């Protein structure tokens, strides 16, 4: 960073810099506590998870993960004694609590739904966004600014405000609780972000490249496909990750429009019930698995975050 040296003139003394670093690190550590805590909870046993005082040091257990992926039922001690010896480590873990595994839970299915709907809607939103952004970036479109503002303004609407008609519409069309319905819905929500971000990225590609291609006898489509798209690769990837994260995190529509078949993970995680309320280790485990991809993508995306969160309004 060359700025660090040039800024020395007006700026921070070494001690000032150290003090700033200290404050930022303290903030970062405090802000990490809830996240670390929930990840740790996923590795606790149910009694440890609700112990007082809260246990920072504990014997790790995979019970939360086992409970997350299995359905279990409580049995009488007599019945437990009559069973043949456990066949696997998770079987043994569950039997310690006088329970037997009755089958897989629905978590894996909900997680897969999130993946399918997330990737499906991301692909569509980025596809539509790329071509629309190219159109807005390169051609004279009547009412261009109004159309762009219209696209942005669709994002201002509270999802609940349009949920009722969408609910009625989906009921009539048979799209309620289907992958297709959710993919279309999330595509609609994401496409505004996708157009705005990609327009910013495509605006930055010099027009001369395409013009050269057009002069060489490429058609407009060929120039778009062979010249612009490769140049916009990074922008498209960054936009895709933003769309994916949104679909992955979305809750309101998923709660109102899905119940079984196409339900995604966010409305499911809060209802992972154990005996006597939420099964916190299982919730912790589910949360950890759900947040892990986001952490990965955030690190991958860190250079483009600013653009993404401001719809391309602020660039570095």
């Amino acid at each position: 960073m060359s700025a660090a040296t040039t800024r020395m003139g007006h700026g921070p003394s070494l001690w000032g810099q150290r003090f700033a670093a200290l404050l930022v690190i303290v903030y970062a550590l405090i802000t990490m506590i809830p996240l670390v805590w929930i990840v740790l909870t996923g590795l606790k046993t149910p009694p440890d998870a609700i112990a007082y005082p809260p246990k920072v040091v504990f014997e790790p257990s995979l019970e939360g993960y086992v409970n997350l992926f299995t359905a279990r039922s409580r049995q009488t001690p007599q019945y437990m004694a009559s069973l043949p010896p456990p066949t696997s480590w998770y079987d043994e873990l569950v039997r310690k609590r006088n329970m037997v595994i009755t089958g897989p839970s629905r978590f894996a299915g909900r997680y897969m739904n999130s993946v399918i709907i997330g990737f499906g809607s991301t692909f569509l939103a980025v596809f539509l966004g790329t071509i629309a952004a190219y159109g807005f970036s390169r051609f004279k479109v009547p009412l261009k600014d109004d159309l762009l503002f219209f696209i942005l303004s669709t994002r201002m609407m509270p999802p609940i405000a349009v949920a009722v008609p969408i609910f009625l519409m989906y009921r009539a069309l048979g799209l309620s609780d289907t992958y297709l319905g959710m993919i279309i819905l999330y595509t609609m929500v994401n496409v505004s972000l996708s157009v705005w971000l990609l327009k910013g990225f495509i605006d930055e590609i010099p027009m001369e490249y395409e013009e050269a291609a057009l002069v060489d006898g490429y058609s407009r489509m060929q120039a778009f496909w062979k010249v612009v798209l490769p140049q916009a690769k990074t922008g498209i990837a960054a936009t895709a990750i933003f769309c994916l994260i949104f679909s992955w995190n979305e809750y309101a529509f998923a709660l109102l429009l899905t119940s079984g078949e196409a339900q995604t993970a966010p409305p499911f995680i809060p209802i992972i019930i154990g005996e006597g309320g939420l099964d916190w280790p299982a919730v912790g485990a589910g949360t950890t698995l759900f947040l892990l991809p986001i952490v990965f993508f955030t690190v991958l995306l860190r250079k483009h975050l600013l653009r993404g969160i401001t719809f391309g309004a602020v660039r570095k």
Partner: protein
Amino acid sequence: MTETTGAPIAVTRPGRPIFRSRGLSDRAVAWIFISPTILLLLAINIFPLLWTVYLSFTSYRANQPGRPVRWVGFENYQRLLESEDIWGYLQATAHFVGWSIFLQVVLGLGLALLINRQFKGHATWTTLILLPMMLSPAVVGVFWTYIYQPQSGIFNYIVNFFIDEGSFSMVGDVNLAPWSIVLVDTWMWTPYVMLICLAGLRSIPDYIYEAAEVDRASKWRQFWSITLPMVLPFLMLAVLFRAIENFKMFDMVVELTSGGPGSITELASINLKREAFEKWRTGYSSAFAVILFVTVFGAGNIYVKFLNKVKQR
């Protein structure tokens, strides 16, 4: 600028090659590229919105599709504006939006100023700080209920470590619940304000500070007359985005307090969901949705005008 016929282009941009491209005309390509997006938004956003407006004038109930629909004019709006509860929900929303944005601006700007000192390793710490805002608000709401547990929660434990409060419930207490959601929102979105402010700070050219040094302006003076005015448009943009998002807030708060205790934290969106999908008063809830949307849209537009003025200064 994209017509393929020559003359006007030659005037405006003389150095530009004149060509005729093969295949579809540019105009056709433009429409083929843009119309799918517009059509999708019209079908799944504007059409439902107009439908909501229509429903707001009727007595429709979505759980009784067979029942004849009655046109009731402005009755829903009238009942809405006369209802005292609505003001309570709007007050709860205002408290949440106002305080969470205030705290995020203070903390976010502060952090940005600190990080802008470019200490060693600042990039790594910045990425760590950014994490909360990328998470699913609903899931955040769920695990904060665990963190806020009166007995075993880590939050209460830490608070008790510093001040001996005994057992208390952030989410269950009438006085604390509104702050519990403000706190979680601040935890989640401070990095958002920070990141935008950081961009603002980095856009200030060094020579301005150098000139101020030459004029022997104090650090304090430099902050008030250079840093703050230059960051202001960025800060205002961050506030705009946060205000719109928090006005719509639903997921995190539903999972954390679900509006309770009583209806202390029942924000506008949560009440809307209750009316629409639990009491099934579709007409009434549609009227509320229309009022909310008009408010956000109107306030947003006025704010953007104001923002543009600040930018031009």
